[in-house]
């Protein structure tokens, strides 16, 4: 039962195959694929709110707690951080409901900051792109009284959506990223 020695060529074949397998590149390229939008929407689904015709949906952080706020609001949330909680509101007004300058200066007044010119206000604003389109983000803070407001303004075709978070200035570092994510997730609820 001697093994025919000429079959040693298969040994070399085996060695070559092993080399080929170990030389295989594993996932080191750029690839493109498409998926239907519907599947994505399901996984990113969020809550809708308001009995009005204008409805919004969003994706909120787990820690935020919704509460019944003022009747003018589409929604209200408590936004907890390590030393307390802020209060966030979403409102929608037909048209512009006052200029950006008027609204920002009104909020500045609420935290005892002096009014600013439109030019200065826009200089510190940041523009972000969200699911509902571009929005302007403002961070207003008064260290002297430890108060701050984060605000987002969405200028839509027929209305303006405002998100406003009133919080202690010391809590800003903890909540700003979550706030921006939330603003970006906001979109129109279409049944």
């Amino acid at each position, binding site marked *: 039962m001697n093994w025919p020695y000429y079959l040693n060529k298969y040994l070399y074949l085996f060695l070559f195959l092993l080399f080929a397998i170990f030389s295989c590149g594993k*996932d080191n390229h*750029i*690839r493109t694929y498409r998926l239907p*939008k519907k599947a*994505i929407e399901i996984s990113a689904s969020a809550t809708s709110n308001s009995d009005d015709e204008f409805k919004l949906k969003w994706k909120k952080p787990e820690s935020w707690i919704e509460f019944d706020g003022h009747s003018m609001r589409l929604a209200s949330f408590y936004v907890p951080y390590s030393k307390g909680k802020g209060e966030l509101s979403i409102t929608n007004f037909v048209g512009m409901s006052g200029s950006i300058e008027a609204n920002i200066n009104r909020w500045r007044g609420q935290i005892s900051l002096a009014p600013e010119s439109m030019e200065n206000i826009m200089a510190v604003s940041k523009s972000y*792109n969200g699911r509902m389109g571009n929005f302007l983000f403002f961070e207003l803070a008064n260290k002297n009284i430890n108060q701050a407001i984060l605000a987002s303004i969405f200028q839509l075709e027929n209305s303006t959506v405002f998100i406003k978070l009133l919080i202690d200035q010391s809590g800003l*570092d903890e909540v700003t990223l979550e706030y921006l994510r939330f603003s*970006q997730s906001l979109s129109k609820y279409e049944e």
Partner: protein
Amino acid sequence: MKIDNFLKIIMSPKIFSYTLIWLIVLVFFGTIAQKNIGLYASQMKYFSSFFFLFLGFIPLPGGRLILLFMTINLFSSLFKRNLWQLKKFGIIIVHLGGLLLLLGGGLTAYFSSEGNMIIAEGETSNYVDDYHDMELVFVNNTFKDSIEYTVVDEPLLKEGNRFNLFENGPEIYILSNIKNVRIENRISPADSIYKGLLEKFVLLPKKPEPENTQNRPALIYKIQGTSNGLDGIYGLFLGQGLNDYFQLKEQDFHSEYRRKRTYVPFEIELIDFEKIMHPGTNVAKSFSSEVNLIEDGIPRRTLIKMNEPLRHKGYTFFQASFIENLDKETTVLATVKNYGRLFPYISSIIMSVGLLIHLLISLPKMIKKKST
């Protein structure tokens, strides 16, 4: 003549003995190292590598190289002339069984994948997030009914690497690939070269945790060569949520840095997650997921429990963990696709049979020897 000498060396049973001893050494050091560098890093360093640096500068052979030598040695030993005798039939079978075990290990090492499928109650998923590998994704939101993903695999995301996303498209230059980051608000206005997230935040490296899954990896990259003012430095981290939107090729994109995603050819819907706690404690006694396995639009209801995984189309879904949210629960299914799964069982049976045959063949000789 030279080939014969070469064959003699690689056929030598001494090589098998030395490699076996070295594997024992690797297992010893690899097990101890887990305490300091974590399970994954230890596995990568000692077992999944061809070489590793001992004390930081002495290169030593890693598990993969040793097992490769062992496979070649075991296979080539089958070509020994004096092996192919009837009285050594059992030994041949044991060799074949061992070889099958090693080949199965090779298949597992190179072609298996594992990760988590995370599903909230009432939701459906059809992808698995890798435990360790990451990917950079450019999501094209322009199309009406679909979303196009351009995915860059982790090996291309090394610091200093450059690539073009599309033909004649802008160049992506990887500036930093950070294993673990903390995110902080900027205390002063950002330079105009920083775009998107980095305009408002900074990504600061943090000491990596031993367990890779506890880290928050981040990527800082530069886009250059655009004509619409997009050139600049961008930052992404795992679970960012706040996307950087921009226009490329006159189409709307946003970028994500996420765990490498593998799509499965079916969907799993979580109907209900149930957990039973040990009385008076917060320690889970058992937990289970009632799911719908949806294939071609046809749902099949099944229960995944601890130690009772769901197996389908080569994938195995184990009940691994859960996430408790305020409004609904989320199940975490450890998902494994292992082409070499059956090899250890089959090879163990083959080796047992081989040893038994060898014993039966040797038995008369042994009895005879004892009686004389």
